[in-house]
Structures are given as C-alpha cells and as structure tokens.
C-alpha cells in the first residue's frame, strides 16, 4: 500500500496553525510529545491506536517547531535594540546575501558576530538588513565592520527582518580581508551575476527587468506600473521563478549531458546539484524551493526506478520548507505557491472529467480546453487567498492566463536560450535578444488589453 505523506503534512501544518493562534507553553507540550512518542513506540503494532497517537505527535511537533522560532537567544541582534535609542552601533560580521545596489545605495543581509555600543562589546548573532551608502563593490561572504544606527523594522519589510542598520556616514564600512561565504552559494551568486550581466547588456531596461524576474526571480528592477498591471490581471505569478523554470533547467542540463554522452544515471546525479545551485541563485524563495524539492524527488524516483507520487512530492517540499522555517506557512508566497499547485493536482482532474475535455476530438481545441481548465483550477484555488490579501477580484484572470502563460513560457524559453547562446557564441545572440524584446512588448500589450476590459478587476 502506498504511504500517504499528505496526511502527515496536514497534521504538521495543523500544529503550526494551532500554535500560531493559541498560546501554549513549550515544556508541557514538549512532555506531551515525549509521552506520545513513547506510547507510539510501545503501541506500534496496534494499528488504530498508533494512527491516533502518531497524528497527535506530528501535530505537537509542528507546534513545537513554531514555538521554538519565537524564542530568540539573548545574543540575538534584536535584543540589543532599544526604544528611542540613538546610540551608534558598530557591528562585525559578514554579508549573507547577494548585495543589491541601486542609486548609490547598497542593501544586503548581514550576519552579526560582534556588536559594540555604549562602550561595551557583545557577542552577537542573527541577521539584519543593512542599507549602506557606498560606491565600492561588495560581495557575498565578505567580512565587514559597519558603523551606524540600528532600529526595528516596520511591518513593510516582512517578518524575516528583525533589525535594520543604516550606514550613511562616508567611510563607516571597513572591509576585512576574510570571507565567510559558503562555496556553493558563492558559485550560485557568481552565475547569477554573469546571467544578469548578459540580460542587462543585451536587452532594453524594461525587457531586461522582466526577463530577470522570469529567469532569476529578481523582481526589484520591474517598474511599479508594470507590476501593478500584472496584479490586476492576476498574471503576476509569471514574474517569479516557478516549477516551470526548474523544469527548463532540468531539461537543458539533461540535454547538455546527453550531448556529452553521459549515462542516464550520471545525468540524473549531475542534474540534482545543478538544481540546488539554481535554487540558491534565485534566492531560494518558497516557490523555487518547492519546485526544486519536487524535481529532486522525481529525479531520485527515476534514478531508483520508483514511480514518483506528485502528492507526496508536494507534501515533502512543504515539510522541507516548514522544517527550516515554520513561519513560512503564513507567508503569502508559500500559500499561493502550494495552493495553486495543490488545486491543479486535485481540482484539474475533477474539472476535466466534469467538462468531458477528453471527448474533444480536435487536438488543438482539446489543448486549449485543457489549458483553460488548468488555469481555472489554479484560479479557483487561489482566488480566496488573493481576495483576502490583495482585496482584489479579477474575473479576467482565467482568460488572461490562457493568453499570457504561453507568452511567458516563450519568454522564459527564449531568455534561457539567449543566456546559453551568449555564453557559447556571443556573436549569434542578436536575434535571440530581438525576439525577447518582441515577446515582452507582446506580453505587456496583451496584459494591457485584458485589464482594460469592462469589469476586468474589482477592488473590494
């Protein structure tokens, strides 16, 4: 009988949600979990009782993991920030993300190691967002000493940022001759820089910003009006790296390795680390991690000649993300990503059977009908969440997605081709760049057409 991981995931998420809304003490819950664990071990042969006890155990484990993230160690950076505090802080640590530069301002996540303020020094831990005015080039892993003000963030910055340091005085950042970066992430960021360089060199700024979002998940360059127009038509999901991109990466790696005459097993084994590097390069956001874990699950399944189960792989990727950070369950990105895929997995077959899509004999028509039903299932799955978070209802979404998703697919494919061609034969990249420009213009025009239809979107 097949092992159903989805049920485990359900209990685990239930525990996280319960702990989020209801205050529970850690230690009583912990001892209850230990009791359940012992009971499960002793009653492992009693089927019915084991299932109930085990469900309870997984439920409490989810809650305990979330509760554990609420407690910060005394040395955490956020413990050193005080209300109405004008002290000048000096922090030593290293850059823990790829620095982003715009208009002479550089921002990055900074892992703190030591902190100095009010003539005292403390050992420090935790990450903070640094906003720095500097003309120099900074890179991932670089050890720095920074001097500036630290304050708590507004809600705008999200829940993962617990402190923000502003370094505005010239010469307040000292580079130390050390690098704490992880080699895999260094490779990932190096590749990201190379690819971004190609995209921005070959394309106009608007087309480059859209391609940057689709290929590398970097949305910061997209003009606000373009982003708002995509939100209105419900097609903003194309501006992130998703399972489709991961699929393209797998396909390209497999093709390349096949040309190089690698064996089937070696191709699968090589593809997995390449996917991890791509995931890190794109910022390891929930949709990418989901797609990467699912792809690795599938590749491993092929490797061991086991039939991969899409529901189990989806749950496994959710459990993976939540194990690392249970708070992700409450992030919009996580919810939309998993709900849309779950809706396609569970709802699409039902809709297909209900509307008898299989009965359509003309193949192109059947293809369009199936595309419509996929889009409809994703929309039905996510519309409640979109309504709740964005207060927007877009009836045009299903229709817009049918036209825009194929275009986005084309842009992603031509974008990857542009990067690959530029790396191998830079002289031949021209036509690919022109094609990309054309597709982006088509995408924006199509999107504009849909949002200007009557009752295309309603604000609540």
């Amino acid at each position, binding site marked *: 009988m097949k092992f159903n991981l989805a049920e485990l995931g359900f209990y685990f998420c239930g525990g996280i949600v319960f702990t989020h809304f209801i205050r529970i003490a850690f230690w009583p819950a912990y001892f209850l979990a230990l009791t359940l664990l012992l009971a499960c071990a002793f009653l492992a042969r009693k089927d019915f009782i084991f299932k109930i006890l*085990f469900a309870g155990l997984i439920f409490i*484990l989810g809650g305990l993991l979330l509760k554990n993230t609420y407690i910060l160690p005394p040395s955490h950076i956020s413990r050193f920030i005080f209300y109405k505090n004008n002290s000048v802080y000096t922090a030593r640590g290293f850059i823990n993300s790829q620095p982003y530069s715009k208009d002479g301002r550089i921002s990055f996540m900074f892992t703190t190691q030591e902190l100095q303020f009010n003539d005292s020094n403390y050992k420090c831990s935790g990450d903070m967002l640094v906003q720095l005015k500097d003309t120099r080039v900074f890179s991932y892993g670089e050890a720095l000493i920074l001097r500036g003000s630290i304050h708590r963030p507004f809600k705008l910055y999200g829940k993962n940022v617990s402190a923000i340091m502003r370094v505005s005085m010239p010469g307040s950042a*000292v580079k130390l001759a050390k690098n704490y970066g992880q080699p895999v992430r260094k490779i990932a960021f190096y590749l990201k820089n190379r690819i971004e360089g190609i995209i921005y060199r070959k394309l106009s700024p608007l087309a480059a910003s859209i391609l940057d979002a689709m290929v590398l998940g970097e949305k910061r360059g997209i003009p606000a009006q373009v982003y708002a127009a995509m939100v209105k038509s419900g097609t903003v999901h194309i501006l992130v790296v998703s399972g489709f991109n991961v699929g393209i990466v797998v396909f390209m790696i497999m093709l390349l390795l096949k040309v190089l005459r690698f064996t089937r097993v070696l191709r699968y084994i090589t593809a997995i680390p390449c996917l991890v590097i791509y995931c890190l390069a794109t910022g390891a956001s929930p949709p990418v991690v989901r797609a990467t874990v699912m792809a690795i699950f599938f590749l491993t399944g092929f490797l061991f000649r086991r039939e991969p189960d899409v529901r189990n792989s989806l749950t496994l990727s959710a459990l993976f993300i939540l194990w690392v950070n249970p708070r992700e369950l409450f992030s919009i990105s996580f919810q939309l990503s998993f709900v849309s895929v779950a809706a396609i997995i569970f709802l699409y077959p039902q809709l297909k059977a209900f509307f008898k899509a299989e009965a359509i004999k003309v193949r192109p028509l059947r293809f369009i009908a199936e595309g419509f039903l996929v889009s409809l299932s994703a929309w039905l799955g996510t519309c409640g969440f979109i309504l709740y978070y964005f207060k927007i209802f877009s009836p045009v979404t299903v229709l817009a997605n049918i036209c825009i998703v194929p275009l986005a697919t084309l842009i992603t494919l031509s974008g990857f081709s542009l990067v690959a061609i530029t790396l191998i034969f830079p002289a031949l990249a021209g036509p690919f760049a022109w094609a990309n420009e054309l597709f982006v213009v088509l995408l924006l025009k199509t999107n504009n057409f849909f949002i200007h239809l009557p009752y295309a979107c309603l604000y609540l």
Partner: protein
Amino acid sequence: MLNLTQEERKVILFLVAIALVGVGGNFLVKQFSTARSLAFFNQDLAKINLNSADKKMLMGISGIGEKIAGRIITYRRERAGFSDVDELKAIKGITASKFAKIKEYLTVK
C-alpha cells in the same frame, strides 16, 4: 490513513525522537543562556591593528588605496612597527583631513 509498515513506523519514530531532542535542546540553550555570559570585553572591535594588518585589510578602509596601503606596510617594515597611530601623518599621501577620517579605524598593539 497513515498506512505505514512496521519498519516505516520505527524509522519515522526514530526521526521524530531525534527531532524532539534537537528542538528541546535548542530551546533550552536559547531560554537559559544569558547575555552577560556571552558578553566579553574587547574595546577594539572596529579597529584594525596597524602592526599586523596586511595590505588588503588596510585597503578595506575607505580613504586608503593601494598606494597608501603599500606605503604603510613599507613604513612598518622600515621602522619595525608603529608605536602610535599618529605616526601615520609622516607617510606621504596621508593629509591631516585624511588622517582624521581614518584614525578611528586604526589602532596600535
């Protein structure tokens, strides 16, 4: 409904047990450690020692380029080290305004 074989049950229970030990241990460390025990005294966190810093480290300070860093290293070698930060004023290229800007990042040990 959670159709697990006996072997799968044992493996999953073992993993859950390890996870519980890990979560409990981590919670204990976070809850019962104190900032005071972690604090230590080191006045020169933000300062670079002129007598031990290499060229690259000196160049990390805004205002010190490759040439000046090279001159500092040469000066240090010739005089067998610095006895005071003020000695930097004697190096070509370090003006009074530049010295005022960089001195807070430097120390002599």
